[in-house]
């Protein structure tokens, strides 16, 4: 019988990662909480946003990259807040300059401020431009299997379908679409957005995805550091359960103790 390597790493753009939990760095109380939660999560890949500096800010003020240095973490600059192709591409180019030629980016092109659903048409266009410009694109998208396939064909290094709207905590809304995406993909599939609690993360991994990216589920939990720890375990448990091969679901019972040898 095939013994799956339960310790097989996650490989993205040719780089190996032991952790399948990717975390965001937004919404934390302060940098210390960001640091502690990121460490408790065991995350190796963390997203960051690219924004204007505050003019007049104290030159000595601490910066996020002081607590999450690029030497220790793989930074994943995102294009959060971008509603068109031009803004997303511009953000990625600035991120690359900011991080000394670092090519890995998280592409998101939003379509609606209420649901933050991706505009998948513009996402496809932006992905094509960025891949041609040499970026390693991890792309946030809907759970549409056709779009996922097209994003992979364009050359994205990972496809990241949403479980539910960003920050909603609703958990996976359409597991059948995710299964379809996972089964057809040749690049890593990272469930990104909508995770609420540990079981949501475990369920995602049990479906066979390669990793989960979350921010709000940890940062806005009552105890973010504790939730980060829970998520780490959930990701590991879900991954092992997937590799272990679950029993099928049956309508009727199947006794676990033998019938033979009954003495009554």
């Amino acid at each position, binding site marked *: 019988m095939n013994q799956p390597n339960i310790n097989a790493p996650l490989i993205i753009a040719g780089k190996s990662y032991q952790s399948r939990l990717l975390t965001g760095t937004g919404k934390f109380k302060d940098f210390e909480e960001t640091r502690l939660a990121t460490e408790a999560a065991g995350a190796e890949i963390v997203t*960051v946003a690219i924004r204007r500096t505050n*003019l007049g800010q104290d030159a000595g003020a601490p910066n996020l990259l002081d607590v999450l240095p690029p030497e220790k973490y793989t930074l994943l600059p995102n294009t959060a807040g971008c509603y068109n192709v031009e803004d997303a591409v511009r953000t990625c180019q600035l991120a690359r*300059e900011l991080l000394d030629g670092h090519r890995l980016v998280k592409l998101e092109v939003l379509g609606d401020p209420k649901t933050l659903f991706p505009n998948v048409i513009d996402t496809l266009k932006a992905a094509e431009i960025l891949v041609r410009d040499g970026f390693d694109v991890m792309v946030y998208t809907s759970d549409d299997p056709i779009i996922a396939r097209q994003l992979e064909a364009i050359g994205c290094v990972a496809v990241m379908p949403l479980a539910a709207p*960003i920050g909603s905590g609703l958990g996976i809304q359409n597991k059948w679409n995710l299964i379809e995406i996972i089964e057809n993909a040749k690049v890593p599939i990272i469930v990104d957005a909508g995770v609420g609690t540990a079981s949501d993360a475990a369920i995602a991994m049990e479906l066979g995805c390669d990793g989960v990216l979350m921010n709000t589920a940890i940062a806005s939990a009552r105890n973010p550091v504790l939730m980060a720890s829970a998520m780490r375990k959930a990701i590991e448990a879900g991954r092992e359960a997937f590799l272990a091969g679950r029993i099928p679901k049956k309508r009727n019972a199947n006794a676990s103790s033998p019938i033979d040898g009954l003495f009554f």
Partner: protein
Amino acid sequence: MQIFLNGQNLDLQAPISLAQLLEQQGYAQRRVAVEVNRSIVPKSQHGQHWLNEDDKVEIVHALGGG
């Protein structure tokens, strides 16, 4: 001369380079990326890039986000 920095008017004494502007604003030792009129000016060129009247400058950095 006047430029626009991160969306705000700023009066400067010309001539001034990007590197000097960053120094003035306190960003000399900080990790930032800079655009002038929507073109990224690489770090290596900050010292040789001279600003002009009405230039639109954007200075960005990384911060927390999902």
